[in-house]
């Protein structure tokens, strides 16, 4: 939902980042306001996942220049956990399996970290179980997964549901979902998409990183951005995603070359 006067949540300006000696992001500019849903598309290696990890504070990436402001604060000076507590959420493309760590315990500790940050009381074990059971319905997830280790032995679809469950518990302000649709069958895609739609509020924003139109059929984006070679090459509305589905990315090479020449 585009409202020009809504609050500015995330403002990325001329962001450059590298991993080891390899530059990946080469000048990303992106402005996200409350209520908006953005889609970021592009070929493999265009920098989409790097952008999401840089925003979440992954230590493998080095910022070489540029700024990222979240609700007016310098996001890049914050530790990953501070960013998460403040309301930035990254839904992982490949959620990590953590043997021996109870999923329920992990979710409770994470939720309480966020609650303390926003001035709410921590939940004890019983209160949290009530909350998590309520949120499980949103992602139609089997409660048995709470008793298992974090993501261990989960199918691809179950891992993605677990990511959306975390989003539902943490109630972030800006959610970046990195290829949440990958590896999902049609039913699971619909469940995950419904969860994302329910969690999208007037005071929050969502960034969907995806390769495919099928997720955007379920969650309609206000803006679609195409990334290539570490920059946003083109921005449009949902029609751009449909165009990409039909024409592919061949035009990107020409446009990218032209942009470099300019």
């Amino acid at each position, binding site marked *: 939902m585009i409202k020009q006067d809504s609050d500015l949540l995330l403002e990325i300006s001329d962001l450059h980042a590298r991993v080891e000696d390899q530059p990946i992001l080469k000048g990303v500019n992106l402005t996200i306001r409350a209520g908006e849903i953005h889609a970021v598309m592009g070929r493999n290696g265009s920098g989409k996942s790097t952008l999401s990890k840089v925003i*979440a*504070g*992954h*230590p*493998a990436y080095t910022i070489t220049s540029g700024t990222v402001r979240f609700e007016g604060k310098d996001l890049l000076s914050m*530790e*990953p*956990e501070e*960013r*998460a*507590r403040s309301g930035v959420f*990254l839904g*992982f493309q490949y*959620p*990590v399996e*953590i*043997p*021996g*760590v109870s999923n329920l*315990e*992990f979710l409770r*500790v*994470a939720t309480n*970290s*966020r609650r303390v*940050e926003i001035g709410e009381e921590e939940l004890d074990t019983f209160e949290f179980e009530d909350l998590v059971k309520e949120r499980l319905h949103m992602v139609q997830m089997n409660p048995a997964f709470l008793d298992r*280790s*974090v993501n261990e032995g989960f199918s691809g679809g179950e891992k993605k549901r677990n990511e959306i469950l*975390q989003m539902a518990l*943490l109630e972030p302000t800006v959610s970046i979902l990195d290829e949440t649709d990958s590896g999902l069958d049609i039913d699971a895609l619909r469940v995950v998409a419904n969860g994302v739609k329910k969690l999208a509020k007037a005071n929050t924003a969502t960034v969907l990183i995806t390769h495919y139109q099928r997720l955007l059929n379920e969650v309609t984006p206000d803006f679609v951005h195409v990334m290539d070679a570490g920059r946003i090459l083109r921005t449009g509305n949902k029609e751009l995603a449909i165009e990409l589905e039909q024409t592919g990315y061949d035009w990107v090479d020409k446009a990218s070359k032209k942009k470099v020449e300019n």
Partner: protein
Amino acid sequence: MAIERQWLSSLPLPNGALEAVQRRGRELLRSSSMPQNSQEEWRVTDINQLNNLLALPLSYAINKPLNTNTNRWPNEPVNGLRIVLDPHESSINNLGLPKGISMLSALELEQNLGHTLEQCSCKGDWPVAINHASANQVLALKIQGRDLPPIELVIKSTPDSFNPTRVLLILEEKARIDLLQVILGENNSAESHIVEIHLGQEAEINHGFLALGDNQSRLLSHLAIEQEPRSHYSFTSIQHGWSLGRIEPHIVQVHGQAKTTLKGLQVSSDKQQLATHSYVRFNGPDGQLDQLQKAAAEGESHCIFNGAVDVPRIAQKTNAAQLSRNLLLSKRARIDTKPELKIIADDVTCTHGATVTQLQAEELFYLRSRGIGPNQATSLLFRGYCQDIIETLPVEANRWDCLNNLMSTLPNDV
């Protein structure tokens, strides 16, 4: 050598029920030498610590301390039997044993003591010999039937002394029991502990071994286990807090067709050195082994694992799996892990593997990206690492708050 001679001459004259054993142990020590780093099984051991251990007086030969430290002890198990081996109690009697658990008679003791050590070919091992030379009592129990109350056996140490203790368990055919052994080190104490267990056919034991040291305490423990067909020996050891700790489980499946499950976790910090040297031999076909040994080393500590598996020609259709997983929590810590598979039989499935890693950066980032600070994230990951070993301990072990004990190893500034 001079230290060992000095130690031998300091021992009281052989006497009591173990007089003959004491004589044989002393003779063996006189005719052999102290462990040396040139011997494979002592290659990376801090030999100085062994010398220090022999400089201590025998616990039962010194006065009983006025204050006994039992702060770390939980209440007695509600549905179980607690037995305390106290060096200042001259005999083990009147234990109030329930039906199905009884003391061995003098004749049974004579017939059985040392038999399993013989079967395991470890009678001449140095940790066994020093125990034989010095131990003055043995807890010898016969277990019959199933549905028995779990036994909690607490080995009590005395500060600044050397404490030799010995246990013999005979599990009759089809017997089943949970045994939790707790060995607690005290300030500058040294524990020498030997366990012999004979499992009759179809017998089962879930054997937990909590070895929790404290402040410059040392532990040398040797376990000899003899399994008859269709028996199941399940052993879970936790080793923590000793300046020198060594657990040696030696298991023989006398005719194969038995199941052995070994789980071990050693967590070291400061300059501690903790070791597990296991040996499993299959003397018949269709035997099974499932072994997982974990170690986490912090500070300048050193963890050692030697896992020998012996599958002779007679042991066809053996199915053995051994995995050693190790976690380095500090740049100055050291891990030595060595699987040692000797396989002669040609129709077997034997696997082994070893990993040495640090805490996984991606796991840490995943937790931090959910608002969990690095200390709490590390703590969660470490708990997770320990959990699959701890959960196989007999249920009574929960009362000893083992996990929190291990968590104290973690540095605060990670």
